[in-house]
């Protein structure tokens, strides 16, 4: 059990009472503004002392009110990317970046300074004072500072919210590396379905200081009844194997026998990958469609139809590759005469499985 949290706490009018156990990997805290994500993260960091409970990472107990254990913040060996950058105004960018390394025990696994500076595009800013940075630049420095502390547990509170898309696309794979290669336990707060789908091993959805739902990213995001941050978050996660790299720049995946085409993936043949297919990106067709630009077609059987309050419906399709969600209009449901048990085809455009939605499985 990598990260295990069970606490009660009272903050202002909000009563926190939550517990979740997350396996190795990256745990995303998900939920609306004010639901308590930062507070939980602070509790793990030791910046908030819960009224009672227990917090442990791997086999290290950070806090246990019963055993009267409460490891001081600086002994928890964290990196914390705060929601606001919190750079040290008395130091240059370079000094901010290396601040943590002087306290950390030597760790050959720890990320290298130059690599981080390169990845975050901080090369030109090293001698700057934090006050002379733009909002996004500050946040990048904060990310670098946390990573360079060589932490054994990484906390990140909406680390990418202030960044532009290309920068996000550059940084996201790095979080994957931390998760998969360095096996760093990560607690990650995010509002973004894309980030959740791509990074989360486990999703903890919060509501008003409580856990509304936990589960694997696949479970939580493919549950058509659970869309806490808007319908756009609904989507399914499939696993597939890299089958071939084609000369036209496409990579062919094998999802339980079904070929899927994606823009070139930087993974060796045979590698397992994880794909997110947003429910709204799926078109359903009764017959196998011909003459369409969309390359990916998954045959399946309708398992469930959930009509929302609006004109839409979310259909859950059982395919050989796994469950796929489709969000279409109720008008189409009746026009195509779809009901539970109907067989049909899910059509997914190649490129709608966007780079940011693909992660190593």
């Amino acid at each position: 059990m990598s990260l295990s949290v069970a606490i009660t706490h009272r903050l202002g009018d909000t009563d926190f009472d939550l517990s979740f156990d997350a396996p190795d990997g990256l745990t995303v805290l998900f939920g609306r503004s004010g639901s308590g994500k930062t507070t939980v993260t602070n509790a793990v960091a030791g910046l908030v002392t819960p009224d009672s409970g227990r917090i442990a990472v791997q086999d290290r107990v950070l806090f246990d009110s019963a055993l009267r254990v409460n490891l001081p913040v600086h002994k928890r060996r964290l990196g914390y990317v705060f929601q606001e950058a919190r750079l040290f105004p008395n130091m240059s960018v370079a000094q901010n970046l290396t601040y943590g390394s002087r306290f950390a025990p030597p760790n050959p696994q720890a990320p290298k300074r130059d690599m981080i500076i390169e990845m975050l595009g901080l090369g030109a800013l090293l001698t700057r004072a934090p006050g002379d940075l733009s909002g996004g630049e500050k946040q990048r420095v904060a990310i670098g500072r946390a990573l360079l502390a060589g932490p054994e547990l990484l906390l990140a509170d909406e680390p990418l919210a202030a960044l532009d898309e290309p920068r996000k696309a550059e940084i996201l794979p790095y979080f994957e590396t931390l998760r998969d290669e360095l096996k760093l336990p990560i607690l990650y707060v995010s509002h973004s379905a894309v980030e959740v789908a791509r990074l989360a091993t486990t999703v903890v959805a919060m509501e008003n200081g409580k856990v509304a739902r936990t589960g694997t990213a696949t479970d939580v995001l493919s549950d058509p009844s659970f869309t806490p941050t808007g319908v756009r978050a609904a989507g399914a996660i499939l696993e597939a194997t890299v089958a071939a790299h084609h000369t036209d720049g496409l990579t062919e995946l094998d999802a339980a026998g079904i070929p899927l085409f994606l823009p070139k993936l930087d993974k060796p043949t045979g590698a397992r990958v994880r794909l997110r297919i947003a429910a709204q990106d799926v078109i359903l067709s009764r017959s196998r469609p011909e003459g369409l630009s969309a390359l990916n077609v998954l045959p399946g059987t309708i398992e469930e139809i959930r009509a929302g309050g609006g004109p839409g419906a979310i259909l859950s399709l059982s395919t050989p590759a796994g469950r796929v969600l489709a969000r279409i209009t109720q008008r189409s449901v009746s026009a195509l005469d779809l009901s539970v048990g109907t067989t049909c085809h899910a059509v997914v455009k190649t490129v709608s499985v966007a780079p940011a939605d693909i992660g190593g499985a």
Partner: protein
Amino acid sequence: MEWLSIEEWNAVALSLRVSLWATFAALPLGLLTAYALARWEFPGRQILNGLVHLPLILPPVVTGYLLLLTFGIRGPVGSLLHEMGITLAFRWTGAALAAAIMGFPLMVRAMRLSIEAVDPKLEQAAATLGASRFWVFVTITLPLILPGILAGSILAFAKAMGEFGATITFVSNIPGQTQTLPSAIYAFLQVPGGESSALRLVIISVIVAMGALVLSEILARRMAKRVGQG
């Protein structure tokens, strides 16, 4: 210089020595006290706070008298120190003690204000990066409060340069040992025609203290530029 007698020069040198020692010796304790008052909750906090301010509230003569009672050769603390080979009474060290005590409230208040202005969120951030309380203080808090430390020190130094009542009451006015500039000025003012001599010493005292003041301002500016707004 011709217009100052050797004795007067001695007074200038002594005042500088006393004031500098008073300031530097009071610094660590002043910082600790300021930090405790700003950040810690402990029983007796208000009493400590009152005690720190006492030298400001009491007429200097009274402070001097209390110092004499306590740190005099026959006083409870003074006799102890004396046995350990440290004599304060009627020595320049005693003058420095008096000056330090008189300047202490000014020093502590200035430092405390700047400690209270430090955003604890920055200190938390440092802690998450592995810095213990001590290192947080040294690497974050201390640099951020340097302007306050400087302000407190310069206040204490200026006060030390001007301190008279407590000093003359505690350690008397012995040339070369305890005759600081203000004591010398006082002595001149006690006799007919002494005003012009007193004026000379006043000018020196003003020049020295103003020099220190300007220096501290320049230093503070430089720090402020470095620290800026995070």
